[in-house]
């Protein structure tokens, strides 16, 4: 129904035009985000669950069981992947060449250390010969003693 039809002629005039202009000015006051804010308020309070927010209040995300479940699932997946990755690191590289190189370096270092120690030690070769001679003499004496004992028994 147009305004002309529904009674505009009764109050037509300067005052009504001024009121229309005032109404237009009032309707034009809100900024461009006004409608979105109204829509957000409706969505937040009526049509949809509250969006995830990290402030205190009724819309806290951790009060939503679905969101908490989703967060827990993501945390578990991340944890498992992390553990697998860490276990892979601690087992060392799977390439044998690296291991061989590492062992060879260690043996070489050990040999060098022994050679260096031997340089400062006395010559044990004569002592070793004397020890061998003592060992042989001891065995001869024991054999002779055993032979004497056997002969004694036979004579008795």
């Amino acid at each position: 129904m147009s305004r002309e039809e529904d009674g505009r002629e009764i109050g037509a005039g300067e005052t009504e035009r001024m009121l229309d202009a005032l109404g237009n000015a009032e309707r034009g006051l809100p900024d461009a985000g006004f409608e979105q804010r109204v829509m957000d308020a409706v969505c937040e309070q009526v049509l949809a669950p509250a969006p995830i927010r990290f402030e205190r209040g009724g819309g806290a995300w951790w009060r939503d069981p679905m969101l908490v479940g989703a967060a827990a699932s993501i945390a578990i997946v991340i944890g498992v992947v992390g553990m697998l990755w860490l276990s892979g690191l601690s087992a060392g590289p799977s390439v044998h060449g690296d291991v061989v190189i590492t062992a060879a370096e260690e043996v070489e270092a050990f040999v060098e250390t022994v050679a260096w120690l031997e340089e400062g030690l006395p010559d044990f070769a004569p002592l070793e010969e004397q020890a061998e001679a003592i060992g042989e003499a001891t065995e001869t004496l024991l054999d002779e003693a055993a032979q004497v004992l056997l002969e004694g028994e036979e004579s008795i």
Partner: protein
Amino acid sequence: MYSRRVFAMARSRLGSTDLAEEITQSVFVTVARKVTGGEYEESGRFEAWLFRVAMNRIRDEIRRQRRSTVESNGHIGDLIAQDPVERVDERFGVLRAALEELSERDREIIELRHHGQLSFREIADLTGEPMGTLLARHHRALRKLRAVLESDASENEMEPLR
């Protein structure tokens, strides 16, 4: 846009942009709740119903303000004067002041008509008044406004606002 029309009505009555936006949001939340809750039973008359909700919400806010201003020994004019947009936009200052002179019911009709952009038939649906009574009331309100504006203009020896 329904939301801007509700906003314009709320701001005209309450004089505060922030409060008008708050009221508008509250009105649309109420309307959405009623629609989703199956309380909307006025098929075909949504606009009148929406503005009835808005009008009731604005009335509630006015009552709340009156209670709080009585408690603080102030008056609503103080709240209106604090609105920065009001101070900036002085074009309609005299007209707004003239609206203050109208009775509650006359002002509601003016604002439903010129801020809410409702037809007289919709206003009649909304208020429950017969069309003839409504038109007469609107006409009388316009005459009062004109008288206030002319008296203001003659007092200030200025031309009427355009």
